[in-house]
């Protein structure tokens, strides 16, 4: 703020401060700086989580961790009998688990499910900063990998080969063993899809950068977003579940309508 030049005379200074436009200018400057700082902050978290996360954020994260996560994961995130160690899971894992509401866990069950997010974005960032400060791990994805402008055809092929056996070709989800399931990918943010691929939450395998390159991950996200943003060309998709929902629809609504019409056509007129 010191860099802004001010009029030199004391009288002029006073007049400048009282100038009708001065409050407008102050607000503009304030907005410019907070916006700029925010932009700088967000890009720096995207590129590398260490540079912008100050010691203060880590401290905040530690407090949040102790209050909300340590019961199961241990005070030093070392893990306990009821929760795994979080050393080395990285910011991506925290952002996915907490950012989709899976953590903190609400109850025991076959798997942690998506639910209402329990923390603000700042709190999630603080938790992520704290956990990633313990040991290096997968960081948050760069923004350019999430721009949904990759090669959808390549993404679709990779998705069919690597993901469709659990998540279904249209990302509608599918069953796993013992009550676990691969959730539907409809409405999941690009960032969370990317983080899930990198960290392999719960039953999901890890798809590291050697396995599927970051660019290919971008393609997969592009494909999923294509499916999400383009309605099915054939009309209502019946949940994209395949022949089961088609058959059910046919028997209940198709044949149901036909039978109703046969009853109508053979009804005796009054």
């Amino acid at each position: 703020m010191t860099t802004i030049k001010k009029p030199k005379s004391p009288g002029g200074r006073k007049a400048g401060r009282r100038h009708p436009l001065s409050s407008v200018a102050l607000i503009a400057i304030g907005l410019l700086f907070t916006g700029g700082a925010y932009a700088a902050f967000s890009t720096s978290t995207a590129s590398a989580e260490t540079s912008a996360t100050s010691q203060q954020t880590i401290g905040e994260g530690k407090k949040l961790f102790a209050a909300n996560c340590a019961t199961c994961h241990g005070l030093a995130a070392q893990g306990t009998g009821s929760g795994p160690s979080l050393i080395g899971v990285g910011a991506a894992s925290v952002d996915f688990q907490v950012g989709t509401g899976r953590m903190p866990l609400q109850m025991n069950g076959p798997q942690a499910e998506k639910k209402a997010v329990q923390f603000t974005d700042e709190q999630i960032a603080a938790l992520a900063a704290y956990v990633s400060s313990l040991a290096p791990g997968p960081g948050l994805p760069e923004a350019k990998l999430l721009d949904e402008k990759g090669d959808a055809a390549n993404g679709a092929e990779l998705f069919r080969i690597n993901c469709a056996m659990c998540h279904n070709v249209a990302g509608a989800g599918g069953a796993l063993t013992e009550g676990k399931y691969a959730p539907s990918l409809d409405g999941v943010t690009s960032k969370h899809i990317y983080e899930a691929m990198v960290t392999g939450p719960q039953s999901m395998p890890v798809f590291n950068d050697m396995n599927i390159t970051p660019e290919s991950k971008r393609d997969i996200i592009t494909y999923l977003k294509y499916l999400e943003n383009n309605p099915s060309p054939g009309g209502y998709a019946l949940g994209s579940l395949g022949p089961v929902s088609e058959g059910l629809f046919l028997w209940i609504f198709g044949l149901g309508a036909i039978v109703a019409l046969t009853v109508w056509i053979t009804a005796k007129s009054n």
Partner: protein
Amino acid sequence: MSTTTTTTELVETKKSGGLTAVAANYIDERTSISTAVKELGRKIFPDHWSFLLGEVALYSFVIILLSGSFLTFFFSASMTPVLYDGSYVPLKGVEMSAAMSSSLDISFDIRGGLLMRQVHHWAALLFVAAIGLHMLRIYFTGAFRKPRELNWVIGFILFILAMAEGFTGYSLPDDLLSGNGLRIIDGMVKGIPLIGTWISFLLFGGEFPGEAIIGRLYSLHILLLPAIIVALIAMHLLFVVVHKHTQYPGAGRTNQNVVGYPVLPVYAAKAGGFFFIVFGVVMLMASLFTINPIWNYGPYDPSPVSAGTQPDWYIGFADGALRLIPPGLEFVWLDRTYSFNILIPLVSLGLFILVVLIYPFIEAWVTGDKREHHILDRPRNAPTRTAIGAAGVTFYAALWATASSDIIATHFRVTIEGVILTMQFLTLVGPFIAFFIAKRVCLALQKKDREIVLHGYESGRIVRLPGGEYIEVHQPIDEYERWKLVSYSDYKPLMIRPNAQGKITAGQKLRAGMSRWFFEDRIEPVTSTELEQSHGDHH
């Protein structure tokens, strides 16, 4: 009225009638069609909604033929690899077979193509479903009895052929889903001992998937199977005309007559209109609801399998049978693998199909009834048949539902192991439970009918007699209603009789045993004597 106007009117009527008459006469003189029209036009059809189900099947078949012809103009049944260059972005530049590529072109680049594909597929699902429902109606009303046993067999073969048509069609686009379906068939074929592998190689022209199968399935799908189906439908309908239509029991309806409307003019108009209604329903479904989105499945590649991979509904029972088989049923003997996890479903489904196919003959043998039957049974009046039907439906339904075990697991939030275990139980025990319940319900309903015939309806009106006694007034049933309740054929268990040599054969014993099982528990129809007596009791 002046004479001039009359003459013009006369001339006009003569003119319009004249042309029709001349044309009709021209055709009749050359084809003698009037005999057929006279015969068919006066054919009486009874009116009941359940008699239209077969018609629905026929109409869906017509829709399938029409839409299918459109599709053949653009489909290329070749497995030659090409690079897709159509307008669906997420498949651009992907290598696929010409079959898949042309299916995608039909869906995205040919005007009306996607609609026609969806019409074809929805109509196919409706076709098989309508046949299924039609068959259930025939079964539960006993319409397969003499003289219609052969028509039951033809109809059932049509059902099997419809499934074959459906499956070959499902495989043609060569997308991931259909390829996986073919892979399962390939696996089942290879599971047959000794000859399985040979048959598979013969079928696919080498190792699966090869480059021949789509072309071969296409020949079957558009040439051989439809030709057989059309021929069998013609026979099926011819038999319907020859046998006359069956009718539900009712006053004035006998084995000798048919109560209903003549084909011309009302019935034909109704039936013709009904075709357009069915077409309309199929069109609505096809234009509003996606079916088989091959663009999601992508080209076939033997490695990926999607979650929720199922066949179309009518093959579901076979898929379900495979899912139900517990693991660990493969044995190696004499250097050959015997896959009982394939053989058990194959054999049990084969037996099931065989029993359904020959059921009319089994029942005729058990009852020993050689009379013609043109009056339908109310299902309750044939308790054992209805119960067998209920058991069969339960068995089929359990297998069918198992094909969607994974979808049941995710959508009802249960474990897939639990679903499979439940369905295993339902498949094996469910039919017995269904048999018992259905039989008891039928007998109870028959008892209720008897009660109503003898004592009338409970009217709910309580009357105090002069002596102080309270009675509830029963409303006697009217004669038309009563006819429905008392006129059914009743069977008694057959007695074992020695044959000409004075011996009781094992076959005789089996037949007597079956007959006892069929007719031991029965409620006899009310006789006129009983009716007379009951009139004395009340009022």
